[in-house]
């Protein structure tokens, strides 16, 4: 059940880029909180740059978080881009197009990558999957992870979240012939 958005969502100045830089920083952080909360409550891993939730397979056009019909306000695209870039900088979102500054969709990280990594490690430990090769599909979409928060995480994002484990030498990622990560072995 999606949670209702906080009252600040219906505060009209939220939709205008504030000229005062100190205020604007806070305004952007308000937006980030809103987006994270929105994504989490909708269980959305991915959002388009326009602010609507992207679910795999279905291309249904949903309403954007940046448009508030109730008070007839919307955020201009320039400011939306600013919000996204700040989110990426702070590690709260990752662009799906790697290497590009602006991408059409963003993965929303309502937990940080490190936090996801330790959660995944926890799963490996509790599920007794250590020292085994587990496919990423199995990890994120498999039955065994049902009930865990990372269940349903898109595969590329899962691979990203496994990277900190690799750095700590706790995991090894197995790539397929195209260099795409397909499986992981956690020690």
């Amino acid at each position, binding site marked *: 059940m999606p949670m209702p958005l906080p009252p*600040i969502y219906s*505060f*009209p*100045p*939220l*939709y*205008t880029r*504030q*000229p*005062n830089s*100190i*205020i604007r920083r*806070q*305004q952007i952080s*308000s937006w980030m909180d809103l987006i994270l909360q929105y994504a989490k409550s909708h269980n959305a891993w991915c959002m388009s740059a326009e602010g609507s939730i992207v679910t795999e397979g279905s291309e249904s056009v949903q309403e954007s978080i940046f448009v508030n019909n109730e008070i007839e*306000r919307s955020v201009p695209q320039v400011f939306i881009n600013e919000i996204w870039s700040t989110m990426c900088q702070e590690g709260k979102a990752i662009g799906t197009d790697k290497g590009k500054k602006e991408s059409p969709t963003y993965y929303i990280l309502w937990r940080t990558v490190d936090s996801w990594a330790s959660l995944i490690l926890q799963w490996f430990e509790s599920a007794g999957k250590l020292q085994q090769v587990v496919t990423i599909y199995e990890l994120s979409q498999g039955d065994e992870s049902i009930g865990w928060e990372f269940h349903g995480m898109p595969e590329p994002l899962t691979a990203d979240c496994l990277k900190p484990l690799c750095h700590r030498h706790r995991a090894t990622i197995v790539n397929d012939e195209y260099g795409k990560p397909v499986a992981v072995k956690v020690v």
Partner: protein
Amino acid sequence: MICIRGTLNLEKSLEKDRPINVMECWHFAETTSSGQPILRENEKDILIDQMVGLYHNKSKILNRQKGRIFLTSQRIVYVDDLNPTKNSLSLELSGIESLQFSSRFLRRSARLILFVKKVDDSQVIGPDGKATGYYENCISTWVCPICMMSNETKGEFTESTDPCPICVNCGVAADYEMTKDSLSISLSNDYLKGSSSESFDSKSNDVNQCPACTFINHYQITNCEICGTRLPNSKIRQGTNNEIGFKDSRVHFELEHPISTSKNVNDEVTNFLQISFRKSDGVLFAQATEKALKDLKKTELGSVYNKNLVSVNGVKVKDEGLTDLPLLETKLGKIGITSLEKSGETQLLNNDIIFNNALTDLNRLMSLANDIEQLYTGISPKLLGERKEGGHKPSLILDREKFYNKSLFLDEIAREIYEFAISEFKAEKERLGYVMVTLVDLYAMYNKCMRIGTGLISPQEMREACERFEELGLKDLKLTKINGRVLCLASKNSFDFVKTKILDIVNESAGCDPLLLTQLLNRDSSNAWTFAIITEVLQNCIDHGDIVIDEQISGIHYYRNSYWPVAV
């Protein structure tokens, strides 16, 4: 001037009684709070000089040693730099007999010596032919310091009056020290009537009739109440004003070396005043004063009753020019060549006369033009010299055309702007206690209201003048810069005041646009706060994070910043 002279003894005895009689040539000069003299109607100012001191006879007048002096068409006005509203004095030009100029010599500064017309004391003669002690015949008006009742007492109320008069209201005897400020002494009316009918040549003289409009003014008035023309009947005035002892309680001054009574009598009263020029050489001022005196005398002589009257009840008053010449027959009385020739001659003669008249008029005009030219050449070299220095075209302030340099001009302008702003925003000031106006607005208003016809001032001058307020002791308004970019003339704390007000309004009605905001702010006072000011204050609020904006196609809406606290 004086009608009946008394005996020499009488004169002397009076002189002894009132040694500082001559001091009465000084009058109180009304000034604005910014230190500009208030001119009378028809009065024009001619010249200003700075840093002058006043002397009476040979002794300094205390507290009148640093001020500006204004030469006007009627007076010489001294405006004190330190206390302009209280210590300012004026001197009637008509009361000056002659002047003498002594230039700067070593450490002695240049001085203009003015000889005051000696006012004969013998004018007041009692009905019995003797000079009555006029102190008994005058009425002292004083305000009781206890109950504020204004009392009238017969006789002059002085320090030595014993017993002291008793207030009719509260019954307490008045103390001279406490009442002297409110004291004014005037001759009782019935005595005046009695004396004037005897002492003046004819009945017609004792009315103060205006030569221009025939209005009969009060006898103490020097300028016609209706048209402002200077009244020539000064003997009536002097008779009442100077002799009978109307004292203006506002004039208080002390001399460095008070005149001793005995000395005064021995010296056979040389009544002169001195104006000491501390900074300038004063030559220009002296020349201008001389010229003004001359002009004044000329106009006095020239102001003939019904001057340009041509005819009274159809009878010609002036018989000169055309009428002096033999009447010319223009009708053809006879027929024939002789008559034609005759008429031709008459025609020629006629033309001659008209032509002659025209030439005379032209000559008169030329002589007037010469006068003006003389005045101009007398003053212009000095002006031109100074003008080059400042690189500044001499602008005129009202009719003030002569300034020695730009700085003086700006000082004067500053005073005028200050006065203008104060009077313009008086209503707001009274209601709200705060005034704030952008310099741009003020500039436009000031130039439109005050400078048309006298030369507009430049924005640069406006700004420089406003920066001088503090130096000149004008404290109510200050030039402030808001948001580091807009110059405003504001009274103290007005910015904070309007800011709190705006914040309150924004708080009350969230999301208001500037129009609504302006309307709400000016709800009870029309246009107290201009849009420019409001915009700047809003900008300031935004910069400080007190207000956040919601920008829409319809305009900007303002909200109180309730979500994003500003880190201190």
